[in-house]
Structures are given as structure tokens and as C-alpha cells.
């Protein structure tokens, strides 16, 4: 009844041809099992793979080739049962050779049925796929050991593989992510545009950062958004090109950048201080090189302070400025002009001899700008000017009072 006729009758040319074919498939173990799972036929591939000659295994249970632990767990019987029910079973697992060495096998088991539907035996094809498994393990190991969260995404946007870092970053388990659209990790306000970007990437796949120059955000399972940096690279597979996305949480970096910006602003503020040295007198000690950005800020800050303190005299102390060239002089002059328009007089102090030479050689006209050698002298002049103005104001008030009274 079982697979191979054993009554000595000539199986005929067709069957002989089939046997030759089976023997020729040297890389494949192709065997028949009887209804109870005992080996009924054995090919040369089976001998090469498992190390047993036909005589030693015919009639032996197929569980002989399983690992002891799998045997104890009832895996051989389970495999046969599933093949019987479904008609066909594809599985992978460890197999053991005669010499005790094991290999990772890809096994297809098909049930053979008589006309009335009863299972009369099984055909089993086994292949050694240890190399592929090794490559697979390396790939997954690589994926898991990557410092960044990694997603492998198909052209249609389905997530195919994720690593542990991605699970942690987004708060989903890999089972929840696999097979889903990658857009689930994109904040809703960008979601609609994302498939278009994805198509662009797959149309000309190359290594590149995602959204260069943009601030990207990711969406966690709990609905919170966080800044991310993403680099994309194409991965060629048998099923077509896949996108490998390495995703990094950029929260810390963004915060750092913000801190830096803030610090720069503060330094700018510190480098252009405006000090009220006396009632209605402001001093502006300039230190370091004056560039356009600093000069603009300086003018702005000074004019605001003039309005705030109702200052009448400002002292620009340039003893801390290394060189005064045409540009710096222009900046200073503009500041003085703007202050004058507001009604505040300016005094410059601390001009060094070399600076004075340079100013004259350059032909820079500082106009009516009053200058004093030291800050002390400048302050004296400033106080004098304020007193003069107060005197005039007092006189004006007296006249006004006299006029109305």
C-alpha cells in the first residue's frame, strides 16, 4: 500500500525515470514516509544530507532525524498531523545527522492520499538552509544592535521590520508595527503629504537624510510628538527595493541648539551694555570688534534706553574697540545721528592715538561729535551739559509761569 512497491515487480520505465530524478537531486533529501511516519524510501540526497545509508533507515521512524528536545516535545508527530490536516506543511527546524551534527532545515511535507481520501503516507523534501539562516541572524543582529531606531519599509509604505530601539522610541511593539503603514508614526498634520515624499524616495532611491533642513517630528503611541532626525537608505531585496530608515530622537539636540541660540543672544546683550551713569546720562562702553549685527543691536538698544531713561546725553566709550575703520565709524555715526534725532547729545571718549590717526587718514568726518580723552572727562562734560539744559528749562518754566501768572 505504501509509497514504494516491494513485490519485486518491474516498476516500469516511468518509475525508474522518477527514481533517477530523485537521486539526481543531490542537495535535497527526498523521502517517502508511510502512514505511521516511518521511512519508506530514501534518496542519495538524503544519504548525503543525513549521513545514513538507505539500509539503516528504511522502516525507522522519521523522528530519528529530529533533535532530542524536539522529539520529547512531540514535534515529529505534530508535523505529520499538521501535514495530514492541511495536506501540506512547510516548516523550518533543526535536524540531526548520523554523526550528531545538526543543521537548520527547510522541510516540506505533503500527505499522500488514496482515492477514498485516507492518508497512505507522506512525501517529504528537506533542504539544508543553515547558510541562509546564518545570514538572516546576522542581518537581524545588525538591525538590533544599531544605535538608532530602524524601520524597513516597502514601497507601498508597509512596515516590514523594526528593531527594539524603534519599539522603545515609538512605544509600539514590533507586532503592532509590522504590516502597518509607516504614516502611523508621522504626526497627522504631515501625514497627508508623506506618501508623496515616500514615492519620491523610491523613484530615485539613494542614501539621504529625510527632509534636509526641515525640523521633522515623530508621533508616539501615546499621541505625543518629538523631534527626530531620519536618514534613509535603499535596500535591494528579491521582493524589490526597501527603504531603511534610521531614526534618532533629536529632542536633546534641538534643546541644545536652542540653548546655544539663547546664549548667543545673551552674549550679544552683554557685549553691548548701556549703563545709566548719572541722571539723564547713559554710558555705552564698547568692547571688541563692531560688526553690522552688533552695531544694529547697539543702536536699537541705546535708543530704547534713551526713551526709557529720558536721557539727554550719551557717552560712547571706544577705548575697548581695537580698530576703528570706515565701517565702524559709519556705524558709530549712525548711532549718534539717531540719538541726536531723539534729542540726546553724544560724547565720544577713549579714542586712542592710533585710532585718531586712522580716522583722520581715512577722511572720516565725525561731524559735530564732541570728544573727550577719558571717560571721566566725558562724564564731566555730560554733567555740565545736563545742568545747562536744566538751567534753561528752569528759566523757560519761570518765563512760562510769569507769562501766564
Amino acid at each position, binding site marked *: 500500500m505504501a509509497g514504494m512497491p516491494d513485490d519485486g515487480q518491474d516498476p516500469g520505465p516511468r518509475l525508474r525515470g522518477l527514481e533517477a530524478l530523485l537521486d539526481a537531486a543531490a542537495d535535497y533529501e527526498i523521502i517517502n514516509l508511510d502512514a505511521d511516519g516511518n521511512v519508506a524510501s530514501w534518496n542519495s540526497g538524503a544519504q548525503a544530507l543525513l549521513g545514513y545509508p538507505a539500509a539503516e533507515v528504511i522502516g525507522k521512524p522519521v523522528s530519528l532525524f529530529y533533535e532530542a528536545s524536539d522529539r520529547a516535545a512531540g514535534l515529529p508527530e505534530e508535523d505529520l498531523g499538521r501535514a495530514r490536516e492541511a495536506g501540506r506543511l512547510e516548516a523550518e527546524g533543526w535536524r540531526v545527522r548520523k554523526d550528531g551534527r545538526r543543521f537548520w532545515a527547510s522541510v516540506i511535507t505533503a500527505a499522500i492520499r488514496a482515492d477514498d481520501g485516507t492518508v497512505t503516507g507522506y512525501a517529504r523534501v528537506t533542504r539544508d538552509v543553515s547558510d541562509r539562516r546564518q545570514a538572516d541572524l546576522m542581518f537581524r543582529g545588525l538591525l538590533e544592535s544599531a544605535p538608532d531606531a530602524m524601520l524597513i519599509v516597502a514601497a507601498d509604505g508597509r512596515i516590514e521590520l523594526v528593531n527594539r530601539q524603534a519599539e522603545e522610541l515609538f512605544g509600539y511593539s514590533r507586532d503592532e508595527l509590522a504590516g502597518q503603514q509607516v504614516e502611523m508614526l508621522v504626526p497627522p498634520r504631515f501625514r497627508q503629504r508623506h506618501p508623496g515624499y515616500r514615492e519620491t524616495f523610491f523613484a530615485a532611491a539613494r542614501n539621504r537624510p529625510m527632509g534636509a533642513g526641515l525640523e521633522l517630528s515623530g508621533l508616539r503611541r501615546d499621541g505625543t510628538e518629538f523631534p527626530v532626525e531620519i536618514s534613509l537608505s535603499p535596500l535591494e531585496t528579491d521582493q524589490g527595493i526597501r527603504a531603511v530608515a534610521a531614526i534618532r530622537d533629536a529632542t536633546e539636540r534641538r534643546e541644545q541648539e536652542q540653548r546655544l541660540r539663547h546664549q548667543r543672544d545673551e552674549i550679544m546683550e552683554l557685549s553691548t551694555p548701556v549703563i545709566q551713569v548719572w541722571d539723564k546720562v547713559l554710558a555705552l562702553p564698547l568692547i571688541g570688534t563692531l560688526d553690522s549685527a552688533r552695531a544694529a543691536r547697539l543702536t536699537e538698544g541705546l535708543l530704547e534706553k534713551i526713551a526709557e531713561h529720558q*536721557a539727554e546725553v550719551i557717552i560712547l566709550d571706544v577705548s575697548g574697540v581695537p580698530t576703528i575703520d570706515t565701517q565702524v565709524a559709519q556705524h558709530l555715526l549712525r548711532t549718534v545721528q539717531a540719538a541726536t*534725532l531723539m534729542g540726546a547729545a553724544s560724547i565720544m571718549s577713549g579714542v586712542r592715538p592710533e585710532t585718531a590717526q586712522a580716522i583722520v587718514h581715512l577722511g572720516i568726518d565725525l561731524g559735530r561729535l564732541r570728544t573727550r580723552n577719558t571717560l571721566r572727562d566725558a562724564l564731566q562734560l555730560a554733567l555740565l551739559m545736563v545742568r545747562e539744559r536744566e538751567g534753561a528749562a528752569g528759566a523757560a518754566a519761570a518765563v*512760562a509761569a510769569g507769562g501766564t501768572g
Partner: protein
Amino acid sequence: MSDMVPIMQVGDTLLVSLQGDLDDATVIGIEEHLTSEVARRGAAGTLIDVSGLTVVDSFIARVLARVVGMIRLLGSEAAIVGIQPAVAITLVELGVPMAGLNTALNAEQGMALLRRLRSDGSRRPD
């Protein structure tokens, strides 16, 4: 026109306060109105308060400078008071020729400035 830009008199000084958005026609109107008022009232000084202006374009600036020149020709002194910081920066950037223009922070200091200018002016011929 005088309804739009009221001219106040404090002692012998006229005070004009400019507010809001000024179009060219209004500015020209102020120019004419103010000069005739200075002549009519024989004011010794005039203060033009622009603290209510957040924007001053080069046309307005030029007209203001012109008015000050006219008032001086009428034998009176004039000063512009209350130029806002942003306006001052804009005027300097635009390069509007306002050098020689008398300016003060507010009306009070403007009064003192006019007083000083008049006493200087009266002293000079001596």
C-alpha cells in the same frame, strides 16, 4: 485742517502734535497752516511733537525739515520732539538730511531747548 491738527499755545510757544497715519496731502496742509499760524500769532518758538508717529517716511521727514526752515525764516525757533527709536533708526537708514535740526526727547525738554536757542540767538549779535 485746523480741526485735524490742533495748534496749542503755551506762553509764546506753539505746540503741534502729529498723530496716526499721515498722508502727503495732510502733511502739506500742516506745513501751510503752521507757517501762517506762526506768522499770525508772532510765536517766539514752535514745537512739533511726533511721539504719536510710529512711521515717518522720507517725504514726511523732508516736509518737517522744510517747515522748521520756514519757521526760522519767520524769526522764530522750531524743534521736533519725541522721535521714537524705530523712527530715528529708519530716518538715519534712509539718509534723510535732518542734520542741524533741533530735536528733544519730549515737549518739556523741547521748551528748554527753544529757550536756550533764543538766548543764544539774542546773545550772538552782541
